[in-house]
């Protein structure tokens, strides 16, 4: 699946007005989103030096062996990525809900008894070609049950950090509009899983990543077959039309490609 996106930033003072405008444009009420993002870093494969030293050398063996080694070399050099586990806090029935609106306009969420649905998300680095929207491969797989952090550790990904995202989501034609901002989360205590949310401070007490309170608007279209140019053109057309519609409120643009780079920098091993 490919994701085509445009991004814009919205000062906190314009947030409510933009919410109203998006509600009018999409003819829907905003859908509240509260997500926990747990970031993992892929481990670099060991042994690339062995291949480098062997290919083309005297001990390279037959042509078939050389081809196999060359293929391994290509695989080992193919890059390692950051991935995320994204936990969506499920809305609960009114009796049990602890989501309350306070005078400050902040939502405060009690974590206890929250049900979380976890999704494994891989996002590639945006494509390098000159395009009107940031385009990249995206893969999301729901992780249903099991010890996900331990599994990911054995699968080759180590825990890095975690944070939460709060916001509102709208849908317009094929476009998903996600108005959101990020809050920091404390690191898990020793021997506590990064996906354990039972002992976290209330949502409103979590510090904002951007202290000014600025929101980000992501306008996004997902297409199943990213190799079909017609689908890409149609998705891009929808995003550009939306950009023009919202231009008085927010400037939607394509960010620097490498600012969205998900590759782990290669470090030379001692």
């Amino acid at each position, binding site marked *: 699946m490919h994701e085509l996106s445009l991004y814009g930033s919205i000062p906190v003072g314009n947030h409510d007005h933009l919410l109203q405008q998006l509600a009018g444009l999409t003819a829907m009420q905003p859908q509240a989103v509260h997500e926990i993002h747990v970031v993992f870093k892929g481990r670099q494969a060991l042994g690339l030096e062995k291949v480098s030293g*062997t290919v083309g050398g005297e001990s390279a063996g037959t042509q078939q062996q050389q081809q196999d080694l060359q293929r391994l070399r290509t695989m*080992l050099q193919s890059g390692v*990525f950051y991935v995320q586990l994204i936990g969506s806090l499920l809305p609960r029935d009114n009796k049990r809900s602890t989501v309350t609106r306070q005078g400050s306009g902040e939502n405060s969420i009690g974590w206890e008894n929250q049900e979380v649905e976890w999704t494994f998300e*891989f996002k590639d680095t945006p494509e390098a070609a000159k395009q009107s929207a940031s385009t990249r491969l995206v893969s999301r*797989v729901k*992780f*249903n*049950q099991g010890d996900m952090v331990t599994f990911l550790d*054995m699968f080759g990904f180590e825990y890095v950090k975690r944070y939460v995202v709060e916001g509102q989501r709208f849908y317009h034609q094929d476009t998903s509009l996600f108005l959101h901002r990020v809050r920091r989360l404390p690191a898990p205590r020793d021997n506590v899983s990064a996906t354990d949310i039972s002992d976290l401070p209330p949502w409103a007490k979590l510090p904002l990543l951007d202290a000014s309170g600025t929101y980000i608007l992501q306008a996004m279209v997902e297409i199943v077959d990213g190799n079909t140019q017609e689908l890409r053109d149609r998705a891009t057309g929808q995003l550009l039309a939306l950009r023009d519609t919202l231009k008085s409120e927010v400037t939607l643009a394509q960010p620097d490609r490498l600012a969205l780079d998900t590759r782990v920098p290669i470090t030379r091993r001692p």
Partner: protein
Amino acid sequence: MSITGVCLLTPQAGNTSTYPKLLAHLSRHFPTQEHEHFHLDYRLFSDTTSQLPGADVQQRAFTHILTLSHDTKHAYVRSTKVGDPDQGSMITIPPSAADSFAGLVQTKMQSAWFPRQTSSVESGVSVSLLNDTVRLSIGDVKQSTRSQGAGTLRGTIIELCKVTNDEQKDWPTSSEEADQAANMLQDLLRQIFHGIEEDFGNVKFTVSPTLSIDHSSGYGKTSAPDWDMAKLYITVLRGQR
């Protein structure tokens, strides 16, 4: 609880399968039992580093992706190490996502994981016997690898799942009891296929206690993940690696 055994019958001389013979026997001797379609899909990846010349195979790690037709709600992804296959970690994903997840591992995680084999049963059968106290699933396992191409016959897989009584709830717990359970299932297999030329002398079931057979949603289809059942299939299908 149930006790389940899984084994892989190697092909007969001339690389022919035992499966048609077993299927014919079932149709002849249990004509009233409905045959449910049985299929599975198994993908094995090993860590790419271990493919290098001179790599220590004792450090080799595997990732297994398994989907079973018994279990319409879960596909299983398990990571193990060669020296300690029982200490792996396993999660479940939706079966509909197994292909895309395997594709992701094969492309964007190729620096870590090397595709070793894909095994599948495409047209097996699953049948309930002996007043629904036994579920038998059989099918031909076809294997494809990068070097061999697609569709070589690897053998016939047999899964025999028998409901146990309360006293045998946690049975088997020791290797002796596992042997005892395997022999019990082997005897049961001979009883089901009584009269057939094959005497199943070489059959060695790998056994484990598993969840109860739940007939409410079909032939033993379960709603909770059956970790032990998945481990059984992975143990048998990964072979001597």
